[in-house]
């Protein structure tokens, strides 16, 4: 089973005024075909956590163990960024095929696979356009398409809908649920949106402000496949307010709004 375990992971970085702990003692495990949502106030180290999982950064304390880990060959992780993650100089189809290209898949085959996926999500008319001709929401769909087409077992999503308006966000959440339902992978979904975390995740990890720690792990009792209306149930509303009470303090502190 594909998965990973974070064991007391910490990340500390140096600034000119000393060092800052971005993450402290983060421990959790994930595996199989689940979506783990991570929700927390801005600046809590969510993105740092994702970069550690992606291998862009290395933990300064603790360790992340992947399975299977055959002589250091770990399951590949595709990272979807909040914004600007697609290359402006590549056409949409070449952006989507980028992961395959880096894996050494030939031009004809990788383009065919990218086109098939674009057709599936209804983006085929934009295959030969450049990203600047697309809306922000469409660019995010291209980034997500690239991650799925690359067919890596682990998907890391860093607030992929954070920069979108509410309506666009709903549609893309629905689309992501649909794609994931068809191609299940292990996914870690970072967000600051509590409802989004609940809608998408099988579990929600709630993080505190800096240094980022995991305050609580909350299972989401919603069956799959899920629809956008799924979180409207009373027991989910309860979870939502429960998470909010965790985050409220930090949010107030950041805005200097007294309790």
């Amino acid at each position, binding site marked *: 089973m594909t998965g990973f375990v974070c064991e007391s992971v910490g990340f500390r970085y140096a600034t000119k005024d000393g060092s800052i702990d971005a993450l402290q003692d983060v421990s959790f495990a994930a595996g199989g075909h689940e979506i783990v949502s991570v929700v927390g106030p801005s600046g809590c180290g969510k993105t740092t956590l994702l970069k550690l999982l992606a*291998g862009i950064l290395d933990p300064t304390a603790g360790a992340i163990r992947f399975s299977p880990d055959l002589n250091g060959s770990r399951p590949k992780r595709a*990272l979807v*960024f909040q914004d600007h993650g697609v290359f*402006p100089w590549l056409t949409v189809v070449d952006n989507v095929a*980028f992961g395959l*290209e*880096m*894996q050494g898949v030939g031009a004809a085959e990788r383009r065919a696979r990218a086109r098939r996926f674009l057709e599936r999500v209804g983006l085929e008319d934009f295959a030969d356009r450049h990203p*600047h001709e697309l809306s922000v929401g469409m660019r995010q769909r291209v980034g997500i398409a690239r991650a799925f087409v*690359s067919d890596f077992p682990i998907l890391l999503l860093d607030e992929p809908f954070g920069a979108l308006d509410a309506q666009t966000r709903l549609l893309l959440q629905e689309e992501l649920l649909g794609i994931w339902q068809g191609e299940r992978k292990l996914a870690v979904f970072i967000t600051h949106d509590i409802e989004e975390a609940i809608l998408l995740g099988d579990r929600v990890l709630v993080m505190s402000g800096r240094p980022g720690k995991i305050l609580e792990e909350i299972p989401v009792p919603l069956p799959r496949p899920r629809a956008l209306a799924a979180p409207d149930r009373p027991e989910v509303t309860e979870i939502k307010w429960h998470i909010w009470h965790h985050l409220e303090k930090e949010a107030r502190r950041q805005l200097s709004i007294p309790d």
Partner: protein
Amino acid sequence: MILGALALWEILVRIGLLSPLYFPPPTAVGRRLWELFVDGTYPDHGRVTLSRMGFGLLVGTSLGFLMGVAMGRSAPLRRILDPIIGALYPIPKIAILPLIMIFLGIGESSKLFVIALGAFFPMLISTLTGVIHIPSIYFEVAATYGSGPLALLRRVILPASLPTVLGGFRIALNSAIHITIAVEIVSAVTGLGSLVWFSWETLDVEKLYATLTVIAVLGVVTTHGVNRLSQKLVPWRT
């Protein structure tokens, strides 16, 4: 506008307000230009100038680009080389021609070296700037998808820095034209620069104007070509 100015010039010379000794009438310059074109003078010397410039440009910008990428990606290399470049760049390249001639002799190679050097620095500095300013997210995307160094260069570094690199190429082109003409003026018997100098020595003012016109046209045409090429190579916006 230009035609109007030329017409005014022509009239001022004809009615005697401007001396043809300093300002030969445009018609006379034009006639002279045509004669020197038909008798092969400009095509022959132009070819010499263009091939010197082209060679220097090619070698200088290629090396400038490679070194710019290397410095852009390596902070230690930047720390070592930045002060050296800072010291060498402002020296007018024509001023080191005598020194280079001591090493390489008075033949073609010292000229080409100095021209290449003139193209090298603007290309190096533009490439360096372009590479340093590539948003780190592009490197992160490439890293998560497992890009090797060659794929990184070809698919990320080169295209991401291309707009700045092309800007540098344009400056390098102008720099190569300047230095080629200057080198030809001081040390060559062929090329458009040498014609400028001979025209002065023989006080052939019409030929002087005609040759400067040819050089100006050369600059306009090559710059236009580079601009067209830029638009073709960069069809995206960031």
